[in-house]
């Protein structure tokens, strides 16, 4: 993974000093609430329902075991001994005291971490596939590109005060999109052109929130050395022309839609012409430098299928099932990618205690070269595990409660912190997730439902990605009471779609039953082997609507 040199460290250390001074002046009354807010947000610090919330950046989800230990340590000393994996692959602390935040940032800087631009109207943490670099079929490893974007976007002096937040995702796999790339402000696709050169396809104007939109392609092939100049051009057009009169119409997607993608693309190209072949052109040596941080670890030469694994699977049906569900194919023979499910019933999705973090850090050291990844589905990945050691790892995960074999299935719910923590929320989301998980505890029943993404957001900001869940749940406020709107047919993959709203919203206590009726409708209608999403796309919403509301009446 990327390691800081003296430059990176100096920049992060300077940020700590800057924020320490800003916090001191705020507490001394020299900075007003309105002045401090944008400054603290750019350091990931929200003031939430009960306490501040600090969002710690995990660049494109890559984390070392020492970094995870540091977060564990911080959560124990400055918080309540747990943290939360967010849907942008970051970590969140729910209860730090504002006065402690400068010290927390100083501690993070010791392990090359920070909270820079994890909130606010600026360029946020760039995200990518959690299997980056270890999965077969990539055009190339997307992480050097992510790191290039991270450095460009970090403290970019022109784009710190955009009309609204700005999110970039990178995809390198023609077959699969695990980063919800099409619903980002910019989607960067690593592609190969007819001449065999690697470059980028650029999508803009996707986004969730109040007005969910799938992005539009504005450049089919961008030579790789031009990426930074081109991103600068996109952001400059947006910074100057994006709406600032209404925060609900301020995202780039509204500008792209208003201008049309064709006209927006023309404006970007005109701006790009001024920058092309200038000092923003990224030399091959820089790509090589960045790529050198993401080289393969010391893999052993192993058979494609481990005999120990085959034997262990034959002996233990539960282990065999876990391997089937939570372990993914690795591009190196004899290795495997393991997803730790942070979706145990009774625990808020994505939550992890300090003790669990330390245990997982130890497991990363023991089984996966000391590195981990966080996922936008709020889980943790050990990406380089020897197949022969999967059984031993499984035993450890069982003890930690991270063995729920539900990756890709209904109960692997994406869920924002919601009204239990977040001051923006209209409704609680965690209890809804729990009610559904409790209803569907029988894994055989869950598997029978096939691949399913169920996503829950507590408000229109859509941190829980409800629009792109096959089933989406949105918390809404109806005259001061918490209600839930359901949408069907969303998808965050290469076939991205925004879900359709089923109808009037429901009360919290009815939600598990509503979901059950939707799923029973699917079971009654599906063709052999047909997934929920395919069935929905074939039959449409009417029949689901009839069944659910007939029952409700």
């Amino acid at each position: 993974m990327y390691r800081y040199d003296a430059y990176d460290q100096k920049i992060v250390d300077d940020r700590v000093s800057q924020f320490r001074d800003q916090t001191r002046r705020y507490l001394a009354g020299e900075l007003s609430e309105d002045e401090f807010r944008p400054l603290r947000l750019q350091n990931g610090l929200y003031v939430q329902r009960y306490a501040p919330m600090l969002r710690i950046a995990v660049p494109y989800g890559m984390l070392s075991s020492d970094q995870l230990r540091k977060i564990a340590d911080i959560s124990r000393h400055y918080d309540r001994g747990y943290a939360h994996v967010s849907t942008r692959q970051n970590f969140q602390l729910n209860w730090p005291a504002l006065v402690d935040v400068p010290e927390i940032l100083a501690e993070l800087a010791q392990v090359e971490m920070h909270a820079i631009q994890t909130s606010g109207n600026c360029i946020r943490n760039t995200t990518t596939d959690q299997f980056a670099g270890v999965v077969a079929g990539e055009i190339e490893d997307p992480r050097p590109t992510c790191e290039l974007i991270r450095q460009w976007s970090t403290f970019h002096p022109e784009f710190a005060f955009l009309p609204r937040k700005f999110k970039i995702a990178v995809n390198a796999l023609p077959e699969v999109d695990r980063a919800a790339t099409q619903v980002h402000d910019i989607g960067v696709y690593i592609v190969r052109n007819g001449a065999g050169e690697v470059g980028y396809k650029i999508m803009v104007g996707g986004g969730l929130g109040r007005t969910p939109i799938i992005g539009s392609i504005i450049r089919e092939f961008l030579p790789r050395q031009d990426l930074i100049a081109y991103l600068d051009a996109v952001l400059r057009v947006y910074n100057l022309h994006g709406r600032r009169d209404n925060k609900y119409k301020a995202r780039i997607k509204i500008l792209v839609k208003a201008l049309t993608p064709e006209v927006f693309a023309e404006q970007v190209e005109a701006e790009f012409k001024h920058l092309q072949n200038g000092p923003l052109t990224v030399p091959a040596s820089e790509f090589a430098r960045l790529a050198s941080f993401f080289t393969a670890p010391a893999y052993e030469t192993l058979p494609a299928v481990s005999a120990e694994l085959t034997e262990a699977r034959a002996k233990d049906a539960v282990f065999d099932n876990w391997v089937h569900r939570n372990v993914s194919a690795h591009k190196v023979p004899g290795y495997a990618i393991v997803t730790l499910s942070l979706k145990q019933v009774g625990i808020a999705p994505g939550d992890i205690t300090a003790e669990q973090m330390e245990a997982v850090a130890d497991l990363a050291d023991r089984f996966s070269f000391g590195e981990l990844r966080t996922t936008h589905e709020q889980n943790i990945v050990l990406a380089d595990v020897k197949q022969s050691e999967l059984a031993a790892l499984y035993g450890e995960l069982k003890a930690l409660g991270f063995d729920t074999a539900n990756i890709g299935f209904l109960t692997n719910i994406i869920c924002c912190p919601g009204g239990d923590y977040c001051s923006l929320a209209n409704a609680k989301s965690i209890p809804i997730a729990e009610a559904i998980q409790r209803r569907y505890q029988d894994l055989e029943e869950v598997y029978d439902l096939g691949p399913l993404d169920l996503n829950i957001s507590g408000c229109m900001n859509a941190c829980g990605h409800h629009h792109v869940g096959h089933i989406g749940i949105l918390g809404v406020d109806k005259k001061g009471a918490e209600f839930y709107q359901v949408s069907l047919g969303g998808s965050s993959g290469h076939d991205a779609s925004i879900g359709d709203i089923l109808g009037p919203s429901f009360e919290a206590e009815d939600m598990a039953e509503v979901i059950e009726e939707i799923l029973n409708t699917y079971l009654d209608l599906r063709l052999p082997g047909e997934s929920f999403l395919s069935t929905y796309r074939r039959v449409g919403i009417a029949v689901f609507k009839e069944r659910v509301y007939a029952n409700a009446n």
Partner: protein
Amino acid sequence: MPTLIKNGAIAADTYTRVDAVDGVLSLPAGDVLVSLDTLLAHRDQVLAHSGGKGVQLKSEQFAEQVADVVKELDLIAIEFPAFADGRGYSTAYLLRTRFGFTGELRAVGDIFKDTLFYQARVGFNAFAIRDDKDAAVALKGLADFSEVYHASADQPQPLFLRRAI
């Protein structure tokens, strides 16, 4: 009155803000600062003025609108109605790097310590510090960071080019 920081030190503001009244522009002796509307309506008069000539752009007015007169102006002031309105950063960058403005580029409005570093990077060399803020404190904001990643008006080479050396 805001306190002016110019070229890294507290300085006197020699400019008088004037605008046309009922279509008539009367310019006092010395340095004058007019709105873009006044400049466009009284272009010849303003450009013939013997003292320093400045124009003040609102945050929604763009660099292109003064592109053909930048060489004749001594000061361009860009308004920040709120510091989180980031348009002025791009306007400044374009004035410096594309339109060749070499005179005083002044940030006015919601300007205080925490805005200075980025503003200096995109090409501002003068800052009208809000009158309720301490200009001596604000001045230190110019030194918030000692290294940067991306290129801008102050440093045309991104770190990836300088690192390679």
